[in-house]
């Protein structure tokens, strides 16, 4: 383990024995995880192991029902909070499948988002952050991420390529500066140039003020953002936690050894795959 930020000032995202069901089907079976500001955690695991379920549960997707355990930031429970309140407490999810919002300009969307996250007590209809100040900041952040400022005038994710959508998530991350960022397969479906751009973006943004949970199948994102902790998920549980070397090992050898070391979870995984229905993970969105 390289560095740890354990000073008293840093915030803590604490997940304790989390059980989650989707449409009455249990998916997570007691996940515990602690992420401090400044730390980078990788979450790996085969398809269907529950990684995205954890991400959606953290952000407050209404379909994901917490049946046990808790999510807290600095001791404040999040379980009952809606996604808006969680965002205002400093939680951010870079979506695996960012949705399109037709007719809503990126700049208008971001101005609302930034205003709300920076003024957690804001009520609907109260004034937004001043336009000049906002534009200046947006322009600067877009330049830092090598984005054409023309993007600000486009409609949110409408007609965006896969890479552009992921970059838009990173731009939001840059503007919102959350305490905790969850990146759900931000590197999937991208060509290698796009993966590099996104990975560098995350590296620039993460720092002592941000705790990051990187959900990935691949190692590339982790080369740019070396995790202090790597967690492996199997059948709705975190079965192993290690350091960057564990991520490397999984990348080279796959999950066969993990399954051998955790036969009970491997069996559970097997029985899940034999279920007739697939697990209800939200994917693309009906327009």
């Amino acid at each position, binding site marked *: 383990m390289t560095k740890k930020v354990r000073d008293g000032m840093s915030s803590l995202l604490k997940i304790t024995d989390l059980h989650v069901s989707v449409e009455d089907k249990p998916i997570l079976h007691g996940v515990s995880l602690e992420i401090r500001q400044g730390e980078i955690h990788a979450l790996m695991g085969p398809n269907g192991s529950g990684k995205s379920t954890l991400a959606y549960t953290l952000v407050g997707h209404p379909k994901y029902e917490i049946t046990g355990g808790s999510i807290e930031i600095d001791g404040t429970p999040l379980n009952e909070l809606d996604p808006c309140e969680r*965002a205002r407490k400093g939680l951010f999810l870079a979506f695996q499948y960012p*949705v399109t*919002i*037709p*007719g809503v300009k990126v700049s208008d969307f971001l101005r609302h*988002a930034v205003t709300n996250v920076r003024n957690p007590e804001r009520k609907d209809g109260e004034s937004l952050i001043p336009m000049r100040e906002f534009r200046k900041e947006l322009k600067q952040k877009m330049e830092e991420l090598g984005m054409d400022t023309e993007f600000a005038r486009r409609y949110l994710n409408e007609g965006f390529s896969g890479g552009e959508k992921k970059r838009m998530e990173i731009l939001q991350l840059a503007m919102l500066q959350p305490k905790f960022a969850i990146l759900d397969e931000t590197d999937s479906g991208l060509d290698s140039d796009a993966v590099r751009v996104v990975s560098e973006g995350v590296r620039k943004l993460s720092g002592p003020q941000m705790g990051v949970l990187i959900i990935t199948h691949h190692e590339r994102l982790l080369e740019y953002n070396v995790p202090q902790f790597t967690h492996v998920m199997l059948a709705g549980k975190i079965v192993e936690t290690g350091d960057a070397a564990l991520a490397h090992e999984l990348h080279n050898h796959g999950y066969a050894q993990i399954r051998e070391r955790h036969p009970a979870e491997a069996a559970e995984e097997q029985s899940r795959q034999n279920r007739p229905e697939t697990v209800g993970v939200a994917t693309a*969105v009906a327009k």
Partner: protein
Amino acid sequence: MSTEAPATPEVGVGDYQYGFHYGTEDYVFRGRKGIDRDIVKQISQIKKEPKWMLDFRLEALDIFFQKPMPKWGGALSELDFQDIFYYVRASDKQETSWESLPDDIRKTYDRLGIPEAEKKYLAGVKAQYESEVVYGSLQEDLSNKGVIFTDTDSALRDHPELFREYFGTVIPSADNKFAALNSAVWSGGSFIYVPKGVQIEFPLQAYFRINSENMGQFERTLIIVDEEASIHYVEGCTAPTYSSESLHSAVVEIIVKRNARCRYTTIQNWSNNVYNLVTKRAMAYGDSLMEWVDGNLGSKLTMKYPAIYLMEPGARGETLSIAFANHGQHQDAGAKMVHCAPHTSSRIISKSISKGGGRASYRGLVKVENNAHHCKSNVVCDALILDSASRSDTYPYIEVDQDNVAIEHEASVSKIAEEQLLYLMSRGMTETEASAMIVTGFIEPLVKELPMEYAVEMNRLIELQMEGSVG
């Protein structure tokens, strides 16, 4: 296409901020309720009209009594024609300064922001309060160029030839029951003549205000845009919220001559006790452009299908329509395009939103007459339904008597996807804010066509509609 679900009563309704009224009790004239020949004669007499107009009114009244209530569209069974005031006059003359108006009327318009808008971005204003226009202005350079912008009663008196040449030629009294009613009891409205080649840069605006309970407002508007002239006319309308119904039944006739342009923008925001049953029609001649921009946010029931008759080759017609139906509202709105000549083109874009048990219907007609070859028409209707209590219907009618035409029709109905809400909420937006943003985006392709001040107003009204509980 019809999407229907059982109604649930417990749905929040956005605040209607124009529901106030200042008590005007000392009306200059207020007839009795109900409609008959005496009332019509009385109106004509008070207005000191020529005999031909009285005859026109009485003939229209007969047609009104003869025609049955429409069986289609919205529910009209509760509309009681005998429980309405047909003519109410709050001020004895039209003023040219706001200060000269009676206090309660001036306060009303101040609160609606009309004098302020006039200073900032309007070329002229008419304000109608109950049955009569109480305030009028027009920039001096426009009147010097021969532009006429007056109330319709004054036009009958001051420009009798021009008036008689066009009045009732676009919409005859027998067109429909409500056109006949308007023809019988009309009062107020705008009369505009734009001379040849005169382009009016800033909008002319009329503001219609109903103030008393059980009021019927029947303004009559006539706009003539001469060759190569152009105009943008805007109307707004509001009323106090009462428990009993009021009726607004206007007739708007427009003539757009060769190479001229006319854009008519409506931001209709009546309170939820107003029946809004309006007939609007334009005739567009060679190479002219007529555009209706029709925003319907208020009223209990609106039935309105602005029409464009494309009379000569090269005429173009366009209708952009936005309807928002909230709790207790039915917006039955749409457009009519009638291709009477070859090489004419039309476009209808309709966006409707229904929320809180509201019902929005698109009802449209594209008609191509026998000789009208090489016509093009494009119709796009999109409906957004915000909750399962609300309803959206589409009734597109196409009548084509000619093979050589290109007609396209697209329609979509969508709901706000859970994933869209989640996405916006996960960026710190409340559910209301997120829904409002999605709705604003939905109508953005139309709103961006409006001048900035109206676009801002439209978005603000939509946000107000979105307040309160969602879904």
